[in-house]
């Protein structure tokens, strides 16, 4: 029942309250009207007795007039008038009371009734005597009747006056009652008015309250507080549905904003990564350019030297110069794009070849490459700095016993490139420093192309989108070092 009431539409509820309030006022009005009606009926009845007596007096007059008329003219009209009025008067006097009470009315009525009997008797005897032309007799009866007529008349008038006085008193008291009732009615109406106004205000207030709370919440939301507390919906009416819908809307707005925020964050991270890649590359290039002032001029010059060596028949010189030229060309060409592993491996080959010419073939270079992986993409200028480190810090002082072993193989989902030397090895602290990017290089040597391990590692991490892109392993002092890089497949 209650839930049924609660799920009524708002318009039904509001009009229901107004109808009930009006109905209440209507009922009170009806009750008051009934009271007023009862009072006015009483007031009407107040002078009822006086009206009755007036009627009696008129009837008595008409009997007397009819008798006099008949005595005067003896017409049949006056005779029939007499019969009619006599009948009427007898009826009216028959209604009079005969009780003897403390109050004079009853006794007076009784006397009027008794005298009227005598009077009518005298009148009829008068008429009879007149018809019989008994002049003496009808005169006597006429006088008798007239005397009684006067007495009755006086009685009726006196009774009328008595009753008028009493009735006037009653009327006054009724009128006073009426005034009191009027005041009471106005007071009641006023109280009813206040009461129904109070009830309407309370009930509509209770109905509208959720709407007010909702609007407050909406205000708060519009001021930017998405976490504003939402009102609980009490009723299942329009306001309840609105509140519910508002709540749902708020939740989905929050979700939507969260999604947008996440995607923006992702985009920003991507941009940052790209920017970092570019920065590191630029850094590498800058370092390279510092080292190689004019590579084009250099390898053109080298090419000229190579041609000269060929013309002079010095094949090995030719080959060496050619290698050096290729090495530098690679640096110029492939600096800002992803390259195949093959290109990097070839660069390492060239680098080793150059070194072997410089150090008269002291470095034993072995490579073990899975041919299927050679076309895998990777950032440029990665392997050569690693090999360069292995040579410079690992095997430089070993003479012809230095070994470099390059291995390209597949391990689960990664392509691994391992550069291993049999040189000095590294301490655990140094390894951690290098991997953590905290290694401070000493004064740049002329043999370096200037790209540090920190740069290499940072670029690999950006490319692989993970941290463990490099692993450095050393079994200890003079037991060599292995650097493995992991590339995504």
């Amino acid at each position, binding site marked *: 029942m*209650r*839930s049924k009431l609660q799920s009524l539409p708002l318009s039904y509820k509001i009009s229901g309250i107004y109808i009930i309030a009006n109905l*209440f006022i209507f009922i*009170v009005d009806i*009750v*008051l009207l009934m*009271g007023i009606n*009862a009072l006015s009926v*009483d007031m009407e009845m107040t002078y009822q007795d006086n009206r009755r007596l007036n009627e009696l007096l008129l009837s008595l007059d008409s009997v007397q007039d009819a008798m006099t008329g008949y005595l005067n003219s003896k017409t049949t009209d006056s005779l029939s008038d007499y019969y009619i009025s006599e009948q009427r008067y007898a009826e009216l006097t028959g209604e009079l009371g005969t*009780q*003897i*009470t*403390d*109050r*004079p009315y*009853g*006794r*007076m009525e*009784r*006397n009027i009734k*008794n*005298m009227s009997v*005598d*009077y009518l008797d005298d009148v009829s005897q008068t008429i009879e005597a007149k018809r019989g032309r008994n002049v003496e007799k009808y005169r006597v009866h006429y006088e008798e009747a007239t*005397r*009684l007529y006067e*007495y009755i008349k*006086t*009685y009726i*008038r*006196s*009774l009328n*006056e*008595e009753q008028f006085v009493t009735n006037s008193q*009653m009327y006054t008291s009724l009128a006073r*009652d009426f005034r009191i009732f009027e005041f*009471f009615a106005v007071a*009641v109406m006023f*109280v*009813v008015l206040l*009461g129904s106004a109070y*009830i309407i205000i*309370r*009930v509509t207030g*209770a109905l509208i309250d959720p709407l007010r709370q909702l609007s407050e919440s909406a205000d708060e939301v519009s001021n930017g507080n998405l976490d504003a507390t939402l009102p*609980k*919906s*009490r009723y299942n009416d329009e306001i309840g549905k609105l509140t519910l819908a508002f709540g749902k809307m708020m939740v989905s707005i929050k979700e939507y904003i969260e999604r947008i925020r996440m995607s923006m964050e992702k985009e920003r991270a991507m941009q940052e990564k790209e920017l970092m890649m570019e920065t590191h590359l630029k850094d590498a290039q800058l370092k390279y350019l510092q080292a190689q002032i004019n590579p084009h001029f250099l390898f053109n010059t080298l090419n000229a030297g190579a041609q000269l060596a060929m013309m002079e028949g010095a094949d090995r010189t030719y080959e060496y110069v050619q290698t050096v030229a290729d090495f530098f060309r690679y640096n110029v060409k492939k600096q800002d794009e992803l390259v195949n592993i093959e290109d990097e491996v070839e660069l390492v080959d060239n680098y080793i070849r150059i070194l072997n010419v410089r150090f008269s073939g002291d470095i034993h270079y072995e490579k073990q490459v899975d041919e299927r992986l050679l076309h895998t993409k990777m950032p440029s200028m990665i392997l050569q700095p690693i090999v360069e480190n292995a040579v410079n810090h690992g095997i430089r002082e070993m003479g012809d016993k230095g070994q470099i072993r390059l291995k390209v193989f597949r391990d689960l989902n990664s392509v691994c490139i391992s550069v291993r030397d049999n040189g000095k090895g590294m301490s655990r602290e140094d390894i951690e420093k290098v991997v953590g990017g905290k290694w401070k290089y000493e004064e740049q040597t002329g043999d370096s192309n200037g790209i540090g391990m920190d740069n290499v590692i940072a670029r690999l991490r950006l490319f692989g989108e993970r941290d463990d892109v490099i692993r450095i392993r050393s079994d200890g002092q003079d037991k060599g070092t292995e650097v493995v890089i992991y590339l995504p497949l």
Partner: protein
Amino acid sequence: MDNKNESNLNAHQRPRAAGIIIPTVIFALAILTVGVLLYRFYMVRSGQDHDDNTYDRYYVMITDDIKSSFWQSVYSGALKTAQEKNVFVELLGSNLSYDYTCEELMEIAVSSHVDGIMVYGGDPERMTELIDDAANAGIPVVTMYSDNPNSRRCSFVGVSGYNMGREYGRQVLNVLSDKRRLSYSGRSTDADVELSVGITVLVDMKMPSYDQNVIMSGLKDSLTWENTDIEYAIQTVAVDNSNPFSVEESIRDVFMEEDIPDILICLNELDTTCAYQAAIDYNKVGSVYILGYYDSDKIINAINRNVVFSSLAIDTEEMGSFCIEALEEYNESGNTSQYFTADITLIDKNNVSDFIAREEEDDAK
């Protein structure tokens, strides 16, 4: 989860809904209850007016002056006795707008078929006829105060005229002794006090001559038997009461004559009142001794102030009561005693304080 939420909400809402509905219901009920109570109160009050006693028989009292306190007193005595017997007595004419004579009231009473009539008789022939008419119609008639011995009245209730006369005679002697006392003490200049005394008796014109004669003989007997050495001259003055106000004029005439009587005897209440007022107005207090009648407030005050020498009071209530008893007896048994005599009391300087006290008692009531 939804159901749980809803029941929680209902629990929150219930006290609030009750907070509106309960006052509404109480308010509506209170308004309706007050209204119904007021309405019932009104109905009960308006219904109260109709509790009247009803009586078995209806007697009427007919007098020549319904307003005099004498007749009012007689009436109240009659009413008191009548109501004990569940009979109502009406002072006929008191509710009528026209002042009828005793004869006309008799006619009205007869044609109203009352159960009994008490009438201030007198002895005009017309009254005799009317009393006979009533008797013919089966209505018993009692004459009061003044008899109509020739009629068929069933009883007479009055005072003994002879006794009244004797009492007045004794008062005349008292007046004389009073005058003598004053002259001996030198306070009176009246030289011929003892030689002769003029007595005027004011007689109602309507008073039957029979009654007058009885009173006069009583008066004379007193003066003759008890003191023979005074000379007195008794004259009667007929007071004209045929017109309203004529009584007062007649009495003033007495005071305007050259020979003003020494003693003025009044035989009814109105005469007494008029006489003492005239004595005051003509500055005759002390020289005219008024012997009054009845014990109305005015007369008692006059005695107290020495304007009236003394007054005879009839036990009026007893008279009224006797009338009812006579009628009741007649109605029950068909006949009754022919005469009822009411007591006479003398009021003078000696006992007037008792009457004043009684008066005050009555006023207090």
